[in-house]
């Protein structure tokens, strides 16, 4: 083997630029920011989000900018088509449909959001516990979930609403009684996958307690599917309320949700199409946007999809 001699001239001093090749110049991008960037590039999903924001804003300012209130009857001016006075026309009691549509939108959105919130809280806590602890705890909770899940929920929801008299609170409560289960299962599945990963082991090795690991490490990493599920819970709750309205168990008059408005209009929609078209359009657009936004969100939050 030939002996290699190192000579000083073989070593040159690095220039300033050359020194920094190891440092990361680009600003570091957190997973969330990355997701946001990807979401922003998804034009359809962004359009969905923007429309949702507009719908939400309209549900607040709509009733304010209208010259009419939602409950004053004008029996002489009933079932009028859209006009300058009544932008969306009037209903069967001569009430202004513009005001009612946006008020109904607000109520429908509230039902959806509250139901999603209830699902989120219950689902994440219980699903987290099931997934993290596994074993006996998981088995018992899972059994309870299974029992609840196998209950025909609409029957129970209807029973509950009949017992407690229909109101927004009752409807949300009834919807969440079985609604949280699928959320819990999704969280459980995620956590089960994640908990065997190295960083969790590392955290355990460092002595972090269960609550910390769960909420600091596991749940944030499972947030993608959770958020996606939420964006789908909102529309399904809005739908469920519409379904209940069809059965006469929706929110109480004089308040109206989009569902109760559609149900009111459905018996004569061939005669007075605007009475159905406006609330139906708003509910469908809302659904549509929640869904495409949810899809976009899922694409954005799932790094596996990154090309």
């Amino acid at each position, binding site marked *: 083997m030939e002996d290699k001699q190192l000579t000083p001239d073989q070593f040159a001093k690095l220039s300033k630029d050359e020194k920094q090749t190891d440092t990361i110049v680009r600003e570091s991008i957190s997973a969330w920011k990355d997701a946001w960037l990807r979401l922003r590039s998804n034009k359809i999903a962004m359009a969905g989000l923007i429309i949702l924001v507009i719908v939400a804003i309209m549900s607040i300012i709509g009733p304010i900018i209208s010259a009419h209130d939602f409950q004053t009857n004008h029996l002489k001016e009933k079932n009028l088509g859209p006009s300058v006075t009544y932008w969306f026309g009037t209903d069967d009691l001569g009430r202004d449909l513009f005001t009612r549509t946006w008020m109904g939108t607000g109520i429908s959105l509230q039902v959806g959001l509250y139901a999603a919130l209830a699902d989120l809280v219950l689902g994440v806590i219980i699903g987290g516990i099931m997934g993290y602890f596994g074993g006996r705890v998981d088995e018992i909770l899972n059994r309870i979930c299974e029992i609840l899940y196998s209950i025909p929920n609409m029957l129970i929801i209807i029973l509950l609403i009949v017992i407690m008299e229909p109101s927004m609170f009752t409807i949300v409560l009834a919807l969440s009684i079985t609604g949280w289960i699928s959320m819990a299962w999704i969280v459980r599945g995620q956590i089960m996958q994640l908990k065997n990963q190295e960083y969790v082991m590392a955290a355990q090795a460092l002595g972090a307690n269960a609550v910390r690991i769960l909420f600091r490490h596991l749940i944030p990493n499972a947030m993608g599917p959770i958020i996606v599920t939420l964006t789908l819970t909102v529309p399904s709750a809005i739908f469920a309320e*519409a379904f209940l309205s069809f059965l006469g168990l929706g929110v109480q008059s004089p308040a109206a949700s989009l569902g109760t408005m559609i149900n009111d209009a459905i018996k004569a929609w061939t005669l007075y199409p605007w009475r159905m078209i406006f609330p139906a359009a708003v509910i469908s657009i809302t659904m549509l946007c929640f869904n495409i936004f949810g899809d976009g969100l899922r694409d954005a939050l799932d790094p596996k999809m990154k090309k």
Partner: protein
Amino acid sequence: MLKYVSKKFLSMIASLFVLASATFFLMKIIPGDPFIREKAIPEKIREHLFAMYGLDQPLWKQYLMYLNNLLHGDLGMSMKQQYMSVTRIIKESFIYSLQIGIFAIILSLAVGLILGIIAALNHRKWLDSATIIIAVLGVSIPNFLAASILQYVLGSKLRLLDVSGLNDPTDFIMPVLALSFLPAAFIARLTRSTMLEVLSADYIKTARSKGLNGRVILVRHALRNAILPVVTYIGPMTANIITGSVVVEQIFGIGGIGKYFVQSITNRDYTLIMGLTLFYGIILMAARFLTDVAYGLVDPRIKLTKGKGG
């Protein structure tokens, strides 16, 4: 497998017991009873009727009596429809619901899978967007609205189909369509996203780089994996279709079981409420059970974890 099945079976019995008990007490909390009328029934007659159906007994006794009858497979007599047993009501009406339900499930699966695959294979092309828009529209319209519009257009306006009833084979078209919108759309989206995920997975890339042709990859690898989430959706889909049938049966005047769903509660027909709840519970549980089994069949990995987790 046998052990798994028997274990599942036992847990189903437990679920049914809890379900029966919960419904029993919930139902008794609701104000009113089966023998309340706008033209008030004389007190004496009410007492007789109560005695006839054992409603004069203390609640715990009624409950035990009910459970005892249930063990003997006796769901009791309807308190509203004279001399009709709950078993008979369910049997006679379920046949209609079953038919439209099964057609709806088949249609949803077929349309959903096909649309989803088309979308995934044409990812980010116009065909993808088109299918997705169709699919999303499906989940954007309340089913009672869809049913009404179908009925008006195909039945009243074009007169292609009967507006209601279930007398001819063609009468199935509208109720089945109305029931399938939502699940089909859901399946399409589900299939699309899992297909995309699978298609970008390493093993597909490997298969491709090995030079396997597209069809083999699609069928043997991609489709099989993409179908998994759809299988898990069978349970919720069944629930969805059952719920949807309430509306669809009302709008299309079908004497199915969904018609009784709300009616039984409104009438305080206690025995029918109990019978329906249990029946629906059994169907949902059976659907979930089948899902589990099917999942095990499609995905061999599952069996291992199932053995441990239950």
